[in-house]
């Protein structure tokens, strides 16, 4: 089944870095995933998180408030 990945953030540099890392990991490993970038504050706050970027995998918050390393993302998406 396709993995649902969401990156929450209002469009800042760290959020963009996170999206790029996730995209790279998905592409390099041929992972069946949908990547969605959530920038709307109301939508972000449905997850009740104040520190962005946030990485959500299958509706579960995995990382918040920092840019994950590529290795971390690989581990999360295995």
């Amino acid at each position, binding site marked *: 089944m396709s993995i649902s990945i969401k990156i929450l953030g209002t469009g*800042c540099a760290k*959020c963009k870095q996170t999206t790029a890392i996730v995209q790279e990991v998905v592409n390099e490993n041929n992972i069946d995933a949908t990547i969605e970038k959530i920038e709307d504050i109301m939508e972000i*706050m449905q997850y009740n998180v104040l520190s*962005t970027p946030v990485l959500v995998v299958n509706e579960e918050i995995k990382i918040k*408030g920092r840019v994950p390393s590529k290795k971390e993302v690989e581990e999360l998406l295995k």
Partner: protein
Amino acid sequence: MNLAKQICPTTTMGKIENGALIVDVRKATEVANVAFDVPNFINIRIDEMEERFTEIPNDKEIVMVCLSGERSLKTTYFLMNNGYENVFNMDGGIIKWVSKGFPTKGSVDELLNTGSCDCSQSNCC
């Protein structure tokens, strides 16, 4: 989820006169440069909000503020998610407050040259 209630500086001033608490979520250094000169005021920066939000009373009107209104909007939703009903976001932040001539402490010169986006100073950037 309900939409956050957004208010302008003039409405905020009216609420302050009726005893509302202003919660400024900017960093202490930003507050030291220029602050709201209002009677009921506390500073809890956004990255401390999850640990400190219980310091905010939920039996009075609360107006969340920051530089431009973006960080405070997030914290408005955060308080709503935690059961606060009388919480408002002041749209436009202290930049709009100053432009309307409402009272501040400190130097507003630098503030008036700041753009409306406070992303670079927020916790996310």
